[in-house]
């Protein structure tokens, strides 16, 4: 067996001929017969909005990383480098669509109007997620790799049973988008999701962010062909899009979601991107990947290219960019404040929500613990 890291380094740099791209790393617009029409309706304001999204989610993410370094979070899972993949796909969803994220989709959460502070509880350790997914149709973070792809497929089967597919009513027809990583593609659950989704023609988009790494393993350890081609084995379309190109990602995801809502079934979208940082704040990438690879990807930065495009076309001026920076600082302050103000849960809360209906043993243990815990009150802090 050959040294994977070497073999990996090269092939991970460019997405190959099938890569859908509408905006080059230099910020040049490209014409694509199939996908350009899907972004034509976007106004300069829309594009500025996407730029704002990209900058703000990156800034909020950086603040969370800082908070972890300062001990305010137990761990943080940075989206650095994947902003366009998440904003582009998230902005393509409609209100009635439902999103199943992994643990890294902070950018998608932003497009669903989820306050970034909401996402911190899990990483601060005050809850296991704890938000109500029905509020923004943004599901809880799922940590067991791949599990959520089956939940997404089942949810989509529910949409079919509700008759909310292919009616032509834009406000009614709904789709599901399931996020997962390149590593997750190896899990049985993800492939079973492909089986169920294709057999039942469920309205679900499988959105794989191929950030080239599964912790220390290059994606050659998960597949020997481009991941978007996995869909061929199950009989539905697969597309590889430049995940650092917010326009292309928006276009490809829009098309896939429309197909789903129209009753044309599942699509696999592989967003070809890169994990610019460590896997998590606990990880040390210097042990397994070469800095040169990261350097090359810096040249493909998703924000820089949109900024160059907006500036060149005169769609945005320095005031605008300054304004966004200011907003970003405000958001960062909001994130920090929200994190620091997040109270430690009262011990009793851990006994809540294990069951919805009466469960005597939990009540018994809860009562026992209350008096046990109280017995230490006198002795002060250590309990």
């Amino acid at each position, binding site marked *: 067996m050959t040294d994977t890291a070497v073999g990996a380094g090269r092939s991970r740099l460019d997405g190959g001929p099938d890569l859908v791209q509408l905006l080059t790393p230099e910020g040049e617009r490209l014409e694509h017969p199939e996908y350009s029409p899907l972004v034509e309706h976007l106004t300069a304001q829309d594009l500025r909005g996407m730029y704002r999204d990209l900058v703000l989610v990156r800034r909020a993410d950086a603040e969370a990383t800082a908070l972890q370094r300062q001990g305010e979070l137990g761990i943080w899972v940075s989206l650095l480098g994947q902003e366009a993949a998440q904003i582009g796909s998230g902005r393509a969803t409609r209100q009635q669509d439902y999103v199943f994220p992994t643990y890294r989709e902070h950018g998608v959460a932003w497009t669903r109007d989820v306050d970034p502070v909401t996402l911190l509880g899990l990483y601060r350790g005050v809850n296991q997620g704890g938000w*109500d997914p029905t509020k923004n149709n943004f599901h809880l973070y799922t940590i067991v790799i791949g599990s959520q792809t089956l939940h997404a497929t089942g949810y989509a089967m529910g949409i079919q049973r509700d008759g909310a597919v292919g009616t032509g009513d834009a406000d009614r027809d709904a789709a599901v988008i399931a996020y997962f990583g390149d590593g997750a593609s190896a899990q049985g659950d993800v492939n079973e999701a492909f089986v169920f989704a294709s057999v039942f023609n469920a309205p679900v988009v499988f959105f794989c962010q191929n950030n080239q790494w599964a912790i220390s393993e290059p994606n050659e350890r998960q597949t020997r062909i481009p991941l978007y081609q996995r869909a061929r084995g199950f009989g539905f379309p697969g597309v590889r899009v430049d995940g650092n190109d917010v326009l292309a990602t928006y276009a490809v995801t829009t098309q896939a979601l429309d197909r789903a809502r129209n009753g044309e079934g599942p699509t696999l979208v592989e967003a070809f991107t890169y994990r610019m940082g460590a896997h998590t704040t606990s990880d040390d990438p210097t042990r397994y990947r070469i800095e040169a690879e990261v350097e090359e990807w810096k040249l493909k930065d998703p924000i820089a290219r949109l900024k160059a495009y907006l500036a060149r076309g005169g769609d945005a001026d320095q005031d605008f960019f300054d304004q966004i920076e200011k907003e970003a600082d405000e958001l960062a302050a909001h994130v920090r404040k929200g994190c620091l103000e997040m109270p430690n849960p009262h011990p009793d809360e851990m006994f809540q929500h294990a069951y*919805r209906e009466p469960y005597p043993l939990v009540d018994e243990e809860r009562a026992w613990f209350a008096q046990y815990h109280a017995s230490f009150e006198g002795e002060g802090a250590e309990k």
Partner: protein
Amino acid sequence: MTETSSEAPTTVVQSTIAKGITMGLRAAMEAEPKVLVMGEDVGKLGGVFRVTDGLQKDFGEDRVIDTPLAESGIIGTAIGMALRGYRPVCEIQFDGFIFPAYDQIVTQLAKMGYRSGGSVKLPIVIRVPFGGGIGAVEHHSESPEAYFAHTPGLRVVSCSNPADAYWMIQQAIASDDPVMFFEPKRRYWEKGQVDTSVTPMPLHQARVAREGTDVTVAAYGPMVTTSLAAAQAAADDGISIEVIDLRTLSPLDVDTIEASVNKTGRLVTVHEATTFLGMGAEIAARVTERCFYSMEAPVLRVGGFHIPYPASRHEEEYLPDLDRVLDAVDRSFAF
């Protein structure tokens, strides 16, 4: 849901355990359009045990779903449908085939409600024909209930007669918590009366199946019939056995067992599952803690040996039977 079912004609019908479940599923599906049935071969075939017989014909392919052959996929998609507001009832074809779905059950089904701080509910029932005695090949005769009872977030029940089969499946479906529903497959064809009009006893309560004074025998599922037969035989020898049909394993109705043991002073637990860390272990530990001073003998456990379920020609020796129960009762009196 029990209210709605009581709208059904007030009659007492003869039924087997299998048909009792079928009737209960039908009642639940009629009462609540969100109830779905899904699994392998549950459609035209009606399941390998015919428990879902006729349901697809009457409720259609959208509500009675023949799934691809993938248990993790069955439970994982059921979770998704529950998130959309449905109440799926999943059939696992045989006890030994629940394990591919174990991850979805333990890491997702059991924990998602807790993860969500109570904002998400997963009213899913997983039906599992379990236990041996049908002369089957490997993986078709197992008793995995303890694996689920050790998992917070799940509820685990088992029926032992047609009336419970009819009512308990409806109560399980009506529960907003996930419920593992273990069906005593070798007793599927045992007959009994089902009164579809009474108000059933709560799902999570044990039942004194036979009153007695000398020793308590606690069993569930297929072993209830065995224990009742043992009690009958013992009665002829002048020994009075109180038989408790646990019905619910998680939560466990300790109060009912405690009351009985405080009366008899002796307890024997019976199940087919491997004794080591089987339900009998938890019952022994908990009851001994509660009844320490009233116990005349340690809790004795009758259960499976510490080997994989053996080839069917060993079943007669492997499975706890009347004699094994009585042997334990005798040993209890020897203390």
